């Protein structure tokens, strides 16, 4: 056991060191890509005829956009690593504050949809694998195919029409302007359901494939030969092995779900990080976009590591 903990510690340390150059490269690429997107923070002012060339020049200087690109990048990077994330180009508030205030909504949505998606995907994937090629398996697979292919915005709008406009059971969007905690929870139902459905569908398919593979292994057959019942064989022997690769997918999806729930957040006017990203992109709010891209990159690296640690924990061969 100690050797295993030590191995995991070494893995963590190695990954942390490797992450530094990786994140640097990512920041450079992200900065460059943002410059390649046509239009910048100044162009958003052009729709007002009262904004004249001298105003544009003044605003460009005020935002530091008149400096050479490399200088903009270096000064951004130097400040960023010191923890100074700068000010939003669109509203002048600190970038960190703008992101942090959106986190509770994002984490709430992430948590609820993770729980829902796992609650659906775990049993569905196992049952489909165990009852492979039966009508149950085919029904699950069909539903999963629907979930993978259905556009989130369409599903969201349909749910709104049925549950908000038609039945009046649930609020259609927002997070509730007033009301207590429980009342506000109903705003979470539809966005969480949409996000969960889409992810559950994909995870069900992964888990089913993984389980089928593991169930074919000699050790599962050996467990059967030792007289263990089917339930124990599946839950104690096959499942931990099948879960290892699925855990990686789930964690990576989860890392991307915070900034990546863009469509769901937009349809449901959910005030999370995803809608901040859409808004910042529309206004070419470079400082906010860079910070969000860096946070997402760090999250992907961290969740990747976490997935590897879990994988290694579940399967000691990986750690060694």
């Amino acid at each position, binding site marked *: 056991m100690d050797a295993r903990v030590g191995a995991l510690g070494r893995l963590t340390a190695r990954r942390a060191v490797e992450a530094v150059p990786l994140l640097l490269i990512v920041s450079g690429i992200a900065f460059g890509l943002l410059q390649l997107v046509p239009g910048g923070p100044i*162009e958003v002012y052009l729709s007002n*005829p009262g904004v004249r060339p001298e*105003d544009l020049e003044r605003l460009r200087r005020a935002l530091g956009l008149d400096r050479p690109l490399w200088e903009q990048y270096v000064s951004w990077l130097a400040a960023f690593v010191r923890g100074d994330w700068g000010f939003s180009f669109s509203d002048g508030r600190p970038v960190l504050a703008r992101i942090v205030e959106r986190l509770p909504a994002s984490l709430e949505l992430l948590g609820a949809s993770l729980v829902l998606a796992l609650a659906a995907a775990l049993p569905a994937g196992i049952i489909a694998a165990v009852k492979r090629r039966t009508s*149950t398996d085919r029904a699950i697979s069909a539903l999963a195919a629907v979930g993978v292919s259905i556009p989130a915005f369409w599903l969201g709008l349909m749910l709104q029409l049925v549950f908000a406009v038609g039945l009046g059971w*649930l609020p259609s*969007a927002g997070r509730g302007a007033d009301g207590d905690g429980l009342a506000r929870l109903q705003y*979470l139902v539809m966005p969480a*359901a949409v996000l969960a459905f889409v992810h559950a569908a994909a995870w*069900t398919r992964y888990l089913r494939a993984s389980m089928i593979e593991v169930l074919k292994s000699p050790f599962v057959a050996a467990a059967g030969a030792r007289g263990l019942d089917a339930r124990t064989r599946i839950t104690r022997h096959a499942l931990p092995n099948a879960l290892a690769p699925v855990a990686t997918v789930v964690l990576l999806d989860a890392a991307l779900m915070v900034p990546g729930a863009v469509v769901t957040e937009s349809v449901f006017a959910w005030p999370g990080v995803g809608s901040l990203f859409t*808004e910042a992109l529309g206004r070419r709010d470079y400082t906010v976009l860079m910070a969000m891209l860096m946070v997402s990159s760090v999250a992907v690296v961290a969740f990747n590591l976490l997935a590897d640690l879990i994988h290694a924990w579940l399967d000691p061969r990986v750690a060694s």
Partner: protein
Amino acid sequence: MRSAGVLSVCLATLALAACGGGSSSGSGATAPGTSRLVVGYDREPDTLNRFSTHILEDIESCVVEGLVTTNEKMEIVPLLAASVPTLENGGVVLRKDGGMDVTWRLRPEVKWHDGTPHTSADVKFTVEAINSPAYNPESTDGFDRITSVDTPDPLTAVLHYQEVYAPYALQFVRGTLPRHVLDGRDIDTANDYNRAPLGTGAYKVAEWKSGEYIRLEAAPNYWRGAQFPAIKTLLFTFIPNTNTRINQLKSGEVDMVVMFPWDKYREVAAIPGVAVYKIDGNGYEHVTLNQRAFPAFGDMRVRQALTHAIDRSLISTTILEGLAPVTHGPVQPVSWAHNPKVRHYAFDPARAAALLDEAGWHDSNGDGVRDKDGQRFSFTLITQAGFAVRENVAQVLQRQFKDVGVAAAVQLHDGTSISKLWFEGKFHAMLHWWQLPADPELALFFAKDRMPPAGRNINYVSDDALTTLVYAADRTVSQAERTRILGEAQARIADLAIEIPLYGVTKLDAVPARLKGFTGNPTNTGPFWNVHAWTLE
């Protein structure tokens, strides 16, 4: 089948758990009273400082009032000023040195929400703050021509302009900055003010929840009297998705959606309890013809031919369902400066073909597209993505150009990208609208020295006579004289067929049928200009 059941059971459980406590919820459907109005708004403001924002000032105008505002007929009416200064009432005096003095007299009874009187010192401070290099407002237009401000008494401010500035009456349409709050501070970072500005209006900012909503509450002791406003709470919820906004209107969660797209008209008009207000706006959809990037547009006959080639009434009656009237120039009928007698170009493909023939464009190789000196008449027509109506209109234009042997390729771009393209002149033709201020400002769009970056002349037209006219209008204060000059300018623009005007931009606002006092507004002043007078029955 069992696992499909598992998923739905999970969802249903969460739904039930949530609904269980939901009866006291704040969704608009359960609060239909007369004291609260929920507005589904398409975007969150960047700042509530009216001088800093680059987004429509709908929310701001409920809180911060201008010295004047523009009403539903686009007339400039006094708000915090006792009257609008003019030459006739002695409020405007032209000086011999070419400058002008404008005297603003303020209403005596107006106080800021904190009880401090609103005075000429605030007017003076506003001019100085905007002209100060320390502050970065969106625009300093007009302010930068004011050399000094005298305040002979607390209710009189005299502005000295170094030259004649025709739109002087709209100088303070965005209001004034409170000196006692902002003096000596960095306004760009004064977030206490920028997020909850101190105003004199019917409402004050009670709460701004980022990404969710802004809640305005009635300001106590509003200067018009305690009976205003009748609606005590205005809740602006930010719902960027148009379909969602309209779903919320249907479910009763929001009461009101301003400026919704034309293609949703039937759907919204059919919602019970919702009234749709249509008002002709001060904007016009048109096709800009960039003469610099596509030299064929430099030939007047070609531009006239392209204008004759388009069946504008067909577009207006079919795609636009009669909502947007055909227009013939940049100044719309709602404006005092509108000239109805400019040249009209009827839909006449034969005339279009004849003009193109005359200009030397023939289909010499029979491929259906005209050519001249080995060059095909083939250009790109850019327009903004995400507007269903505009995308449809672009396709009609493409088809009708094709009928006269002209090939147009439609390209869609997102809003910020397209701004960059037109500002750099990197396009051939563009389908878009200009939303003009209440004071017609044609020089910016048509003077020969106002091509980007110096202005918005993106037709890249260079006409001496027109340039003389539009600048003369800018240097004239008398409205009768300006009307005459601007009328001539409009006639010149139509004669030269500088761009292809299509239709006026009608504004559609969906409000509760029981809302009284609502009028809409043709300008960017926005429909909340008279919010103090609204009542819910």
